[in-house]
């Protein structure tokens, strides 16, 4: 019986990977059609997309640098989804996480590097959690739908940090609206010569593994998934859903904040007014595409990073307008969401067929 089960689940997994892969292929074909409509040979454009992102040492470095916050955003969204909390406010939590790292990185000085970095990242995590807990509070106290509150909190977060950078946090020696740079002791070291890849990549990999282990290999993670799968049944089994939702929220907000912190300490070093990172929004699409599994999301986050970096190369080399790059990303997301529907139907059928 158990060998039959595992063969079924393997078949389901294979089907899911296949359908998602097909969706991505269809999305790229559609995107190519758009590129062709703009009068550009899509094959040339695609070649530059991948060679720009993966063809040179610098390109690979850039792609991996973008991958770090994207991957953490996917983890953040997936954990919240496990408890059916729709955290679409990751963008804002990333901004707040960046702010936490910035404040500690600039204004706390005289610490040895590892401690300073850890302190900055702690601030990022706490800021991310606090920002998400605003939406959590509104949901538990007033029943406000978190889809709405978190999306609104994104804008408040982004404008908040801009206002701070334009006023109290403004670098007095700069003509433009930007914060000071973080202290040298707060900078995450680069780990690949001649590129921007930083130690955050290692942090992201470790965090990805921990999340996987916690959700799929511990009793706590089982409870988390149980609440998400069927909160009534979970309650009957003696699990307190509200407690689990709160735990899911805390992890989700913390991961998003951490993503912002790693990006700031490893890459940006300061905040320039008007910065819109977009990792939070892209991360949602990548999480859906990765089917909420850390390994799947590692792939999808990488693909989204490739599109970001390669999109620039596409424009520089053959003049693909930047909006088309965004459109391509949008098409990938839509195709993957549609494929998720097919996957669900198909899984249902396959499971029934097995009975």
């Amino acid at each position: 019986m158990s060998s039959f089960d595992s063969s079924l689940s393997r078949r389901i997994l294979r089907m899911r990977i296949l359908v998602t892969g097909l969706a991505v292929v269809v999305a790229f074909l559609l995107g190519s059609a758009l590129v062709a409509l703009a009068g550009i040979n899509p094959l040339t454009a695609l070649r530059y997309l991948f060679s720009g992102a993966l063809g040179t040492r610098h390109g690979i470095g850039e792609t991996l640098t973008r991958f770090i916050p994207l991957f953490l955003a996917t983890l953040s969204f997936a954990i919240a989804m496990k408890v059916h909390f729709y955290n679409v406010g990751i963008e804002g939590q990333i901004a707040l996480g960046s702010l936490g790292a910035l404040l500690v990185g600039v204004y706390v000085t005289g610490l040895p590097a590892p401690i300073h970095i850890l302190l900055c990242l702690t601030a990022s995590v706490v800021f991310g959690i606090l920002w998400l807990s605003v939406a959590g509070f509104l949901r538990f106290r007033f029943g406000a739908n978190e889809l709405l509150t978190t999306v609104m909190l994104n804008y408040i977060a982004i404008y908040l940090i801009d206002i701070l950078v334009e006023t109290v946090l403004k670098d007095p020696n700069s003509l433009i609206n930007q914060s000071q740079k973080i202290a040298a002791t707060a900078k995450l070291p680069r780990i690949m010569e001649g590129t921007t890849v930083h130690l955050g990549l290692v942090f992201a990999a470790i965090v990805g593994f921990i999340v996987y282990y916690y959700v799929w290999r511990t009793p706590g993670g089982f409870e988390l998934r149980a609440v998400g799968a069927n909160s009534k049944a979970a309650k009957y089994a003696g699990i307190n859903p509200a407690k689990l939702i709160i735990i899911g929220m805390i992890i989700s907000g913390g991961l998003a904040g951490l993503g912002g912190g790693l990006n700031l300490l490893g890459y940006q070093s300061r905040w320039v007014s008007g910065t819109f990172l977009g990792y939070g929004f892209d991360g949602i699409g990548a999480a859906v595409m990765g089917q909420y599994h850390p390994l799947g999301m590692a792939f999808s986050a990488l693909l989204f990073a490739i599109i970001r970096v390669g999109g620039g190369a596409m424009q520089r080399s053959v003049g693909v307008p930047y909006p088309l790059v965004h459109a391509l990303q949008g098409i990938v997301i839509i195709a993957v969401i549609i494929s998720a529907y097919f996957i669900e139907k198909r899984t249902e059928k396959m499971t029934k067929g097995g009975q």
Partner: protein
Amino acid sequence: MKKKIISLLLVAMFLVSLVGCAGAEEPAEEPAVEENVEEPAVEPIKVGVIFTGSIGDGAWNESGYNALVKAKEDLGIEFSFQESVPVAESGEVMRNFAYEGYDLIIAHDFNYNDIVSEVAPEFPDVLFTVSYGYQSTEDNIAAITSSGWHASYMAGVLAAAVSETEIVGVLSATDSFMGKRMRTGFVNGAKSVNPDIEVLEAFTGSWDDVVKGKELVNGMIQQGIDVILSNSGNVNFGVIETAKEAGIMAIGAPSDLSSVAPDTVIASAVTPSGIYVDYGIRQLAEDNFDGGVYVLGIKEGAEDLIWNPAFEAEFSAEVIDTVNAAKLQLSNGEIEEPVVE
């Protein structure tokens, strides 16, 4: 099964359309190859440009892009660009251009200046210009900027020359050094024509707060202005609307706004950004590129006053002459720079 067939058909259709488009693309590429065969000896200058927004914005970026197209025609340069590059990511884009073998990298916004200062030392063989930039920390950086007051000075001259109430107004978006310098230029221009003229000054504190702009200008109108210069981004449209309702004259800035309200906008104090792009390319083409800060003005075409043709025809020769005389003085460097507190 039916669904499968349909989806296969769809995919096939896309493939066919792709091949079709790709096929159509090829003849277009051929002439380019022929051109290269004609002039194999000359290696064209490769210019990479970074824009903050879209090249179709009808303002700053579009003007820069048009200058590139023109430089390609006139000087035979090759260029490529990347749009909508946030300051935080601009360093990587510059490095990409440098690795891809570009000779000149134009960062088309003063916000990129600090990043250029960071990246330029890594690539001593690549030249960098910053449009409207403020500092040059290396030999391979040219920060190209404008006086910031020539155009508004001319607007002031025009406003004073056509005002009947002898009260005119000027509105900026910010009260920064640049905003003040622009307004002071206007005041000096107006006083040069009519020392007794009263100039009302205000700023919105925002490039987008149209309502506040309208209120401020309405206040000025109640105090009797009959000409307003507005250089405050999107607020301009609210100001021009208010001027139209009150029947007073308006001067637009920093691009030509005559078409917004042809019966109200008498002229525009323009600061076309293309000149910054053009200047750096020309310096390189003439093998004359030096690092430093370059301040351009009316003489170099970085600033100008552009008439609304309908009003140019309507105004007396005296008005036109006064404005032209001021333009000549400015380009000869006979007018002192406004003092900003």
